[in-house]
């Protein structure tokens, strides 16, 4: 019984997160300016990270956790560098 509940919940959550990633990538294409595209990249990687955590619940393995942590770390650095680039025109002054 609990396996059925878990499987259904994981499937629904994966579907919702995939739709969220799809919407974020739509905004990457239509976003009128560069800052919109950077925010949608940010939203995209947060959704991908949550999708990986959901995978780890679905399969019962903890290896996906480390991948989620790395996505979180690198995504932050990428967004920060892009914001700096918009502000100054170069990343390292």
């Amino acid at each position, binding site marked *: *019984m*609990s*396996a059925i*509940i*878990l*499987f*259904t*919940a*994981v499937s*629904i*959550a*994966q579907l*919702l*997160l995939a*739709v*969220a990633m799809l*919407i*974020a990538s*739509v*905004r990457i294409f239509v976003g009128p*300016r560069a*800052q*919109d595209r*950077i*925010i*949608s990249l*940010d*939203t995209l990687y*947060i*959704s991908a*990270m*949550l999708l990986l*955590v*959901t995978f*780890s*619940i*679905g*399969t*019962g*393995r*903890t290896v996906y*956790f480390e991948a*989620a*942590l790395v996505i*979180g*770390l690198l995504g*932050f650095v990428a*967004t*920060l560098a892009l*914001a*700096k680039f*918009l*502000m100054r025109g170069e990343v390292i002054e």
Partner: protein
Amino acid sequence: MTEQVLDLPLWAAIAVAIFLVLGALLTLIGTIGFLRLPTFYERLHAPTLGTSGGVGAILLASIIYFSVGTGRLVVHEILIGLFVSITTPVTFMLLARAALHRDRAEKDPDVPAKAPAK
């Protein structure tokens, strides 16, 4: 599902299911708001629903699942939660300032001019 799934009691499975769907739903709502709001400064607010509520709920589901499933306390998900909740305000603050700088440089009439220095 063919993978080896941890055996959970019913109450834990229901709690994990509720938090998982809640987190995914919050993330989706935040993203929909991000698609629909009209200006950039309004759009900036919507994805934080996913980075606060969504991340919190899904990581809580993961903590409950692995703690109950393996019989010992597993809290390494807190690391992700802490990191995301620290870095998201920094990122969005910097992006908002960068957007303001760009709009002012283009003399956008919707953006107020820079306050005079004291």
